[in-house]
């Protein structure tokens, strides 16, 4: 029953507004895929089309070989965990968790056994008879998860399920969710706007912007090699440099104001065209470096040092262009002083050429 979830050129219009445009991807059975993007990017609409709450205007959704594009939500082997949990307020915890089994006409005895087992799994054993309003936010979250998992769905859809929890609980739940997913081997499609959450839990991330896919990749790929300006800016901090592409013999350079950033020659653009590059602050070091690859070295003047505890942000001016680097604070005495001359270096591999 290795069913891959496929989305094929899925588009959704609400009146004149196009919420999702030509989104295609597939998720293998047992993978954790995150749809990441700012609010209004179409991630929740995409999830709701997989659940069956919205019907695509164009395109189709398939699970394995079955086309489920027009299938009613109550016939789909998918389950959803809602942002606000959507627990039934007039039912007990046990009735909530057992609801899916009741709908499948599972006999009462078996139902209560499986509910008990599921509550055990989410580490809240014996709370069947409690009311929903007697639970804390974190407990409600777990109960919502249990209710969605008890029907053994092929795909679990999660719509910002940790959004309402406080930071510490959220961090714990991230790890627990990931462990649970690996243990059960269920496909998870997870929607969030929280990049850190996405990087922590996902096997793969799809970045959505304005209803379209910007980039798809593993957390490492997305963070280390953003391909578009949007992705580079949305995930983490970065130095974005806009410049002109200049070919020179063996390689190429992007001339960005005061800095010439060497890159591998790039066939998609021609000489003189404008091009942007992104370099993560923590990839840049103060002083020369002796790495394996090609090292880029530039000289500049320290403008500002912002101490942030474990790291310090150092702003460096290079002939009018500012670069920010992040330095681990091992010894506060060794922080550079503003106004001093310095040398910056980074591995050329860490220069990301942005194509969009």
């Amino acid at each position: 029953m290795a069913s891959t979830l496929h989305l094929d050129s899925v588009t959704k219009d609400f009146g004149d507004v196009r919420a999702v445009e030509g989104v295609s991807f597939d998720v293998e059975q047992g993978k954790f895929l995150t749809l990441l993007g700012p609010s209004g990017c179409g991630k929740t609409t995409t999830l709701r089309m997989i659940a069956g709450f919205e019907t695509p205007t164009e395109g189709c959704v398939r699970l394995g070989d079955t086309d489920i594009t027009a299938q009613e939500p109550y016939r789909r082997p998918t389950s959803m965990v809602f942002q606000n949990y959507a627990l039934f307020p007039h039912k007990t915890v046990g009735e909530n968790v057992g609801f899916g089994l009741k709908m499948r006409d599972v006999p009462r005895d078996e139902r209560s056994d499986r509910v008990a087992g599921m509550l055990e799994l989410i580490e809240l054993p014996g709370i069947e008879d409690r009311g929903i309003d007697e639970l804390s936010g974190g407990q409600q979250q777990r109960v919502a998860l249990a209710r969605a998992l008890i029907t053994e769905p092929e795909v679990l859809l999660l719509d910002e399920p940790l959004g309402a929890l406080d930071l510490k609980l959220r961090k714990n739940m991230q790890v627990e969710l990931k462990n649970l997913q690996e243990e059960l081997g269920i496909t998870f499609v997870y929607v969030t706007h929280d990049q850190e959450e996405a990087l922590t839990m996902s096997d793969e991330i799809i970045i959505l912007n304005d209803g379209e896919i910007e980039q798809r990749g593993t957390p490492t790929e997305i963070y280390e090699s953003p391909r578009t300006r949007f992705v580079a800016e949305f995930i983490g901090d970065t130095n974005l440099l806009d410049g002109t592409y200049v070919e020179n013999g063996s390689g190429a350079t992007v001339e960005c104001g005061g800095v010439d950033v060497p890159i591998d020659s790039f066939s998609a653009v021609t000489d003189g065209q404008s091009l942007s590059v992104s370099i993560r602050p923590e990839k840049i070091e103060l002083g020369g470096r002796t790495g394996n690859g090609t090292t880029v070295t530039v000289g500049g003047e320290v403008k500002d040092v912002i101490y942030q505890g474990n790291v310090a942000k150092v702003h460096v001016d290079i002939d009018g262009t500012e670069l920010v680097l992040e330095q681990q604070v091992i010894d506060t005495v060794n922080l550079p002083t503003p106004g001093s001359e310095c040398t910056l270096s980074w591995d050329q591999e860490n220069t990301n050429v942005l194509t969009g």
Partner: protein
Amino acid sequence: MSVADGIRDRIGSSSDPNDGAGGGLKLAALLTYLFLYGPILVVVVMSFDAGRYGLRWEFTTEWYASLATRSDLIGSLWLSVQIGIVVMIVSTVLAVIAAFGLSRFDWPKRKGPIATYLIFVPLTLPLIIYGIGLFVFFTRLGIGRGFLPIVVGHVLYALPFATLVVGAGVIDLDRSLEEAAMDLGADPLTTFREVTLPALMPNIVAAALFSFTLSFDEFLISFFVSGSGAVPLPVRIWGMVRADIEPEVYAISVVVLAISIAVAALATKLRRF
């Protein structure tokens, strides 16, 4: 929050016990409540008065005792209760349908607000027009006056109120609850039965009780379409006070009052707001 809470909030925030205005405010409040409940108090006091024409007030429960022998009053009370129950059921069922239709149906542009307006506009229309209209309509049909015209009239009267109460619940209803139920395998009908109805139950019960009291106390419509043995209590009482107020009228009025207060209290308790 109830209206009373709102008033309490305002009075609470503006009246300082050390403030000279506080005493005046209390007096004003007392007079307002006296004004509101004065007429009712008069009826209650009179119902326990022994002397029919006397100037002195003497306590008695005689009139309550003799109520039992007044088959005309008891018959009308029973008829009013029967009408109230039928009106309650019909009006509540229609209100649930109307509330869902108004808030859930995918109305073409601008038709939605018009439909909503048309449901609620009867709230502002003079009841006497309903009375005349129903009277003419049922006379032409050959049905004349009686139980059915009264029920129809009362449903027309109670429906906008009931729709308002149920509609408030439908608008506040969290759609994701219904989606969650469907997601877990409940078809639309099961979802409605298992999730939507229970979530709306406080509003539905309030609408039902509201419909009952509206019908139970209604006079104008009943006045036009009652007759031929079917005379609801308010019309019967009206008929009795024209000539001379019999003391049993006070007693039955207090009974009516007690029923209305009980139903209203129940509705308030069940609505939880």
